[in-house]
């Protein structure tokens, strides 16, 4: 269950997850976050990512459910 479903309104799909989209244009480049999508399952999330972030001919693209990411610290927070 994604964090969005905890918000005070309902979507067409009651349960959705947020996915961050990563891609790179060339093998020498590192992966870079190019955006995010919201979808009810992995298959649709892949389709949305492919269709939405089509501005380049990426050599690699991947998506990660945001709730699977473990954040150590964020801008403004220091490592403690």
């Amino acid at each position: 269950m994604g964090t969005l479903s905890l918000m005070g309104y309902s979507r067409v799909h009651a349960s959705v997850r947020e996915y961050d989209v990563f891609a790179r244009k060339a093998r020498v480049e590192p992966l870079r976050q190019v955006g995010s999508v919201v979808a009810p399952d992995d298959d649709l999330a892949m389709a949305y990512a492919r269709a939405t972030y089509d501005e380049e001919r990426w050599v690699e693209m991947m998506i990660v459910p945001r709730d699977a990411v473990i954040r150590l610290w964020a801008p403004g927070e220091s490592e403690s």
Partner: protein
Amino acid sequence: MEPANAGTFDTLLKRGELIESTSEMTPDYLRELKHTLIVSGDTELISAPAYYLAAKKAPSVNAFMTGIAIIQDELAHAHIAFHILETLGESQEALIFKRDPKAFRYPYAFDVPLESWTELVVANAMYDQAGFCLLGDIHEQCSYGPWKRGLVKVMAEENFHLRNGRNWSKRISQAGGAAKEELQRAVDWMFPLTVEWFGLPDNLKQHSAQLDYRLKGLTNDQLRQQWLSTVVPFMESIGIRVPAHKENSHFVLDYPFPSTFDAEAKRWDFKDPCTWDDVLARWRARGPRNAEMVALFQESFAKFQVRV
């Protein structure tokens, strides 16, 4: 949401740092950011039905596919803005599907029907150029990190729309005859509408919170000049007249600004100057195609609600 420490916020802003999360914002900054994002998201979103209704008049399958590709880009750009609004606590569904048509905040120009392929490519050459100036400024200057980064994709794609508009405008102009006359007529009504797009002149706009918060970097008049400096030379280079000319380093309009516009007839009356209050009243009342375009994407949502 935790209220931001105003001191920390000011320090970040003054140092030219990016704001990354709501916990770093003051309530006032958050409100101004949301407002700016809604205008941007609404503009991208409404361009889809506006362009679609004209793309149907495409002269070939290839041209139609180009039109559809542009519409797909615009929807993805709208997605970026509305998705950020969602992370800021707004409901994307409420904003897109449940708002009254008159509550949308896109430029008035889109309310005047684009009814031919010629009008669509002029929109690509002039409206998308306006979007390019406005978003390019935000992309360079914006103090909110997630939006600044999201605009990388948007700028790349707007460039493609602009190229489509310019290539086709040039081609239609070179064809001459009735085709060129139709192009000139489209520019005649669309040019002043795009000049208006940038809003009140700086001498009437007392104060801009968007500038204070570095949500944008240039003033309305600076952006308008930037737009004129690209569109006027381009139109002249393809043999199309525009009511503006260059004087020293800046561009001057050849008509009273603002003037009265008859949306149904798509005609400006340059002999009838009006006040900015008149313009604001016309914008608030919205134009002929507002309700039809919003219905195009809202209708199915109400009819087709599948809930688990």
